[in-house]
């Protein structure tokens, strides 16, 4: 648990799926090592223990929406444990539930998404992606394996510069790539035929909550009449609604903005006087909310749905997986 928390803190582990899987696996370990203290019921004590772990993780880095959903699932499973089970049986049930969750909601869901999305890629396409989404990376590699001929435009932004990692992985596998930064998006969008974006979560009003800058990419694509496909597993959907990016967001390290890695000539913000520092604020947002009108279709494990169908999925299928 400590190890996972520290990984979040250091930023080694990023991306909704990766963080969620790591957290659930850490929970599995914790459950296996757990033993009920005397005079306490398993369900209540375990729930409070899980709560303690979650607070620790929040200290390291605020939870992503996918992690929040997974924790709710786990707590509901714990609450539904029949009282007749012995401790070891309960523990094995919980661990297998977590395994099933990971398998069904993430691994298999990704496979379904791959098949749907790869069908939308034709020969000669120029696909644009922003940042580094694991689902989009899988889609591109899968389509490449199927033998489709296409080019990829990887758009990146400061300070995270996650696109560089994706770029390296794609070029190594032999995909032809164009790399650029977010400001140049109007320049490249003339050639682009499809935009594939990942999401951290999708809200019930169809707003896509994902890495900061995604909204700009979707907006420019919409202005150039390029279809935008958001690829997101259904377990990330959330019933909250959000209109803009300010009401709920995560702040990153402000100093990351003033530092530009690898370029000494642009370090203008070193050596600021106190008076200057008092007037200057550095704002490093992590997420932003893309309005649903910019999204053409959302590719999920339930199929390809328009953004307006997200609350339907949340309502109808949420019951289903809570009752696994």
């Amino acid at each position, binding site marked *: 648990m400590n190890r996972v928390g520290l990984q979040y803190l250091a930023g080694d582990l990023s991306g909704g799926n990766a963080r969620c899987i790591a957290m659930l696996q850490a929970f599995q370990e914790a459950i296996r090592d757990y033993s009920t203290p005397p005079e306490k019921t398993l369900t209540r004590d375990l729930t409070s223990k899980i709560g303690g772990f979650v607070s620790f993780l929040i200290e390291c880095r605020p939870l992503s929406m996918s992690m929040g959903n997974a924790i709710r699932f786990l707590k509901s499973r714990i609450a539904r444990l029949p009282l007749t089970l012995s401790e070891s049986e309960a523990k094995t049930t919980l661990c297998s539930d977590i395994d099933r969750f990971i398998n069904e909601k993430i691994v298999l869901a990704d496979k379904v998404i791959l098949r749907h999305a790869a069908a939308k890629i034709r020969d000669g396409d120029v696909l644009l992606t922003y940042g580094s989404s694991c689902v989009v990376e899988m889609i591109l590699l899968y389509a490449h394996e199927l033998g489709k001929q296409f080019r990829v435009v990887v758009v*990146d*932004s*400061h*300070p995270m510069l996650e696109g*560089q990692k994706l*770029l*390296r992985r794609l*070029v*190594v596998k*032999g*995909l*032809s*790539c*164009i*790399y*650029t*930064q*977010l*400001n*140049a*998006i*109007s*320049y*490249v969008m*003339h050639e682009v035929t499809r935009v594939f974006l990942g999401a951290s979560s999708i809200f019930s009003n169809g707003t896509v909550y994902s*890495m*900061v*800058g995604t*909204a*700009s990419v979707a*907006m*420019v694509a919409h*202005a150039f009449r390029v279809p935008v496909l958001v690829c997101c597993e259904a377990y990330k959907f959330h019933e909250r609604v959000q209109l*803009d*990016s*300010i009401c709920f*967001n995560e702040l990153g390290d402000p100093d990351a*903005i*003033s530092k*530009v890695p*690898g*370029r000494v000539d*642009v370090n*203008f*913000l070193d050596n*600021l006087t106190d*008076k*200057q*520092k*008092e*007037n*200057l*604020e*550095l*704002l*490093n*947002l992590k997420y*932003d*909310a893309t309005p649903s009108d910019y999204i053409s279709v959302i590719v999920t494990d339930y199929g390809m749905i328009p953004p307006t169908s997200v609350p339907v999925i949340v309502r109808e299928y949420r019951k289903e997986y809570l009752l696994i």
Partner: protein
Amino acid sequence: MPDTQALVNDFLNKLKKRKIEGSQATAKQTAELLRSVISQTRMPYTNQAAALIHSVKAVGERLIAANPVELAVGNVVRRVLHIVREEDLSLTTAAMAGLNLSAESDDEDDTDRDNHPALSAAAIAAASRSTLRPPSLQTLLEDVPDSAAVPHTSSSGGDSEGKSKSADKSSRSRKLKHDVIEAVNELIQDISTCHELIAEQAVEHIHQNEVILTLGSSRTVLEFLCAAKEKKRSFRVFVAEGAPRYQGHLLAKELVTRGLQTTLITDSAVFAMISRVNMVIVGAHAVMANGGVIAPVGLNMVALAAQKHAVPFVVLAGSHKLCPLYPHHPEVLLNELRSPSELLDFGEFSDCLDFGSGIGAPLLHVVNPTFDYVPPKLVSLFITDTGGHNPSYMYRLIADYYSADDLVLERRTTSGN
């Protein structure tokens, strides 16, 4: 002449190597160079305007060819040509009024006589005809040196008038050069003071408790905001950093030094923050005749976001940035691609960039454009040193500053030559 040549070559070199930063500096240096060229031009006996125009065009074409993307150079060349034509026109009308040549004015209306200028009585009437006659098919097709043949035949007749005219002509030629140089000095003065005139209008647009968004760094925007601060308006500024040059960091530093509340955000956060912004104020690299803007990269994205949230998008531009050309495919033709090393570290990506061996076609391309084109429908207001204008009005300003004859500056190669 030799020292002007050296100056011209030195300036050409600087333009080619992109050593001059900023359209204001470029415009000023171009104007100063053209002033030297004009003062060094040897004026012929008649048709001084044509000689001046010819020498300015000769230098101007080379300057524009050295850096076609820096539109301020072409703007200043065309401004100077317009100045020459205007000064010549005003001198001609003054001379005509002074000498009271009413007879010749009848000749002007007679279109038949236009085909036989040799029949006119005085050289001054012929010269005035060339400056005052409206564009017709004949004027469009004939070259400027054609009119140099005119005074030869006309001076043979009317000798008695000729002597007094020649005295007028030489004083006229000195006066023309003098007037043109004075006007070019005024132009240089205008270019230098454009920031103050624009900044004066800041108070009209910035009220209290406003939030202003800008991207990258522009000296005009800095002066504009500081002028508003001087007049005790309270506002805060969001500066987007403007990757990959990160000029926004510079602007933020300048603003906090002058005591303004500034927040530095990443370019990716512009869409997120713009819902809380009252106004977007940016500078431009050039303003085209249709009201479109050639702006630093990333501003099209900001303009689209501003349109979505109904936030006014205000562009500050000095009048030396107004270009009389219409943009055709501006993303490619009026753009410059900078070094990929600003985006990717060559050392880290050397394995991906190494395509010398293997199949042949490179797998990785890096794109780093300098400019963006913002269409006129996304711009709410232009603030220039002459006041505030709508994008649809910009084409009218062109008539003030430029002549229609000067729009195409490239040498036309005709089969006859």
